[in-house]
């Protein structure tokens, strides 16, 4: 994901070529949501008629829905009319003009994460004129991807260039009316990634997207759609970072994965949205719907997530295992600190014969945070010989935090087998004393112990992501001891 200056310059050029930057800058919507806003959004994105209809239908559904309240999280009501649904980047003169003007605390964090200097500047919202997500990688590796027939582009581009694919699959896994936030996203999604892997193709490289939310950026309602045709394979990485802001920000993304016969998608996320400060001020509300449909036989999907950011995280990457012998995996590390709240887990819906699923969840709570695992394992009547293995481990740091586990099992098939293991442990004084007795700093000790706890999940991550995830834990845990 390292990007050279040359590539950045190319991107800048590219943006200007599209005339996009100027357009966005002059075009920030007033807060508020109504059909007019959606029409304007769709028009601005030059979408075909079907897309507008789809959005409006979703919006009408959303109006009839109520905000869900069942999660183990607590937050003031979101005023949906106080949000701007199309917010362009801040004007350059309002942004910090150089790294010297950026909060040193934030820079220190980036430095620890090993993010290269020019990247740091962009992350901090310095007026470097390169806003790029999936576009960057697509540009960098355009040729080999094209050669392989892989499509990797912003979803707004896909809507225009591949309307048939979008029409066929958008909303096929997460229908617009699936839940409150999915409906909202369907109505107003701004951008996101689109990936199409043709039959029999093994995507020649890992695809990655770095989402960056600036308050004024366009990432809050992103939408991702990945389609793996028969016998294909792709590993997709998603990194999320956001600068610090005092206001809470809503992030309601939808990710849909479609997997056909013998195909496999590996989807990895390192989520580090701004968690709020040590007093619980600010931070992202991360309400995300992620779901994979294993339609074909022997289809396989793995979700691996490392969730360290956000004030509130509310997400359940799920697998619908329809195809015979299809496999769903969920590997998760969720870390909460200070006043963060996380309610996360997965749903494994076994519909086909001999479908298998594995859930490994590692929850770490520090400070006054609250961390809940919520998982559903469901077996339909046709799920003969299906099995699930679930392991949920919680680790507590200090005694003011909380861990909760809510495993739900529903079975309509007697032959289905479920195994469930759960543990709760603490970073003990004895472990800390041992580390410190060997000369290790207390903070480094905690991070080492926590990394050890997460090992089973980290080994599922692609190498460079695993390294980043380890560092991220260290940074996220700062101030958790003493």
């Amino acid at each position, binding site marked *: 994901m390292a990007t050279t200056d040359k590539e950045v310059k190319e991107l800048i050029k590219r943006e200007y070529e599209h005339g996009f930057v100027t357009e966005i800058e002059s075009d920030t919507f007033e807060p508020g949501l109504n059909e007019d806003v959606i029409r304007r959004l769709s028009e601005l994105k030059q979408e075909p008629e079907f897309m507008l209809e789809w959005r409006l239908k979703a919006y009408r559904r959303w109006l009839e829905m109520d905000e869900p309240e069942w999660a183990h999280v607590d937050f003031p009501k979101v005023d949906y009319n106080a949000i701007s649904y199309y917010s362009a980047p801040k004007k350059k003169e309002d942004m910090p003009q150089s790294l010297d003007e950026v909060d040193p605390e934030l820079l220190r964090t980036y430095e620890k994460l090993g993010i290269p200097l020019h990247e740091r500047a962009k992350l901090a919202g310095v007026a470097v004129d390169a806003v790029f997500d999936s576009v960057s990688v697509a540009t960098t590796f355009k040729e080999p991807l094209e050669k392989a027939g892989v499509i990797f582009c912003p979803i707004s581009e896909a809507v225009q260039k591949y309307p048939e694919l979008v029409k066929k699959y958008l909303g096929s896994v997460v229908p617009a009316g699936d839940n409150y936030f999915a409906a909202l996203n369907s109505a107003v999604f701004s951008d996101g990634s689109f990936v199409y892997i043709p039959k029999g193709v093994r995507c020649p490289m890992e695809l990655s997207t770095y989402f960056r939310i600036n308050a004024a950026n366009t990432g809050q309602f992103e939408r991702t759609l990945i389609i793996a045709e028969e016998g294909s394979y792709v590993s997709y990485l998603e990194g999320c970072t956001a600068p610090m802001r005092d206001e809470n920000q809503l992030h309601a993304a939808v990710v849909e994965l479609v997997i056909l016969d013998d195909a496999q998608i590996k989807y990895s996320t390192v989520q580090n949205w701004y968690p709020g400060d040590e007093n619980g001020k600010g931070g992202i509300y991360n309400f995300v719907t992620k779901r994979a449909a294993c339609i074909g036989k022997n289809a396989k999907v793995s979700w691996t997530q490392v969730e360290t950011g956000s004030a509130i995280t509310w997400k359940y990457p799920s697998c619908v295992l329809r195809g015979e012998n299809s496999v769903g995996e969920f590997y998760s590390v969720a870390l909460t600190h200070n006043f963060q709240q996380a309610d996360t887990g997965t749903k494994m819906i076994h519909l086909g014969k001999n479908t298998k699923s594995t859930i490994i969840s590692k929850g770490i709570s520090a400070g006054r945070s609250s961390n809940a695992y919520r998982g559903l394992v469901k077996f339909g009547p046709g799920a003969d010989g299906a099995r699930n293995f679930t392991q949920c481990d919680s680790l507590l740091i200090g005694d003011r935090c909380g861990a909760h586990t809510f495993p739900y099992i529903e079975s309509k098939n007697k032959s289905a087998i479920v195994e469930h293991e759960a543990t709760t442990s603490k970073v*003990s*004084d*004895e*472990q800390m*004393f*041992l*580390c*410190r*007795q*060997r*000369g*290790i*700093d*207390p903070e*480094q000790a905690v991070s*080492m*112990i926590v*990394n*050890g*706890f*997460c*090992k*089973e999940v980290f080994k599922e991550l692609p190498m460079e992501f695993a390294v980043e995830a380890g560092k991220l834990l260290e940074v996220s845990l700062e101030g958790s001891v003493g």
Partner: protein
Amino acid sequence: MLSIKNLHASVEGKEILKGINLEIKAGEVHAIMGPNGSGKSTLSQVLAGNEAFEITGGEVTLNGDNLLDLPTEERAREGIFLAFQYPVEIPGVSNLQFLRTAVNAMRKHRGEEEMNAAEFMKLAKEVSKQVDLDPAFLKRGVNEGFSGGEKKRNEIMQALLLQPKLAILDETDSGLDIDALQVVSNGVNALRAEDRAILMVTHYQRLLNHIVPDYVHVLAGGKIVKSGGRELALELEERGYGWLGIKDEDTSN
């Protein structure tokens, strides 16, 4: 090197150490013996800086500097090493990673270059052989699923790696069979050096056949009740703690 003067310590409001006095010079090996519950581990932990214990009086200096003001990790970096009686497990953290982190923390403190993974691996393999521990143990989680004897050998391996100024060995002999005792003793004897002191805590005298101490102290009821040379240990073996007017529920071995 280490000077303990009238040290008092308590845990959960209960006084355990009731005025310990002890002088240890570089190059010396001291043995502290005493019945179970006499405060041997408490003394070891207090010297290493375990915050579960409260110092209620007295002073401890290391080469003239006040030790009691330093947090645990700084004492360690000043050269105090404790081989634990009951080493804890740290699941998922490999021994190798743990040890390299420790060694590098010490090196950093001394202003030396940190060791990279390959260099450290080489060193760790050599040292693990010294205590007859299969290098495969380096890859396992810290003490995770180790047998009692393996844990003890692992502790001595750490002392050999970290090369402390003062090594405190808390019941490093307990739970070892004869062969393992020999291996561990060889490790400890390899630690003996002009510029290093060793404080050995043991319930039994048999360890002292392998590691011959310069001084022997008997701890009872939180105080050192008798000090002497090597012969004191032999006398204790022969006559039991009762000879000193100390009750002990277990002196057999």
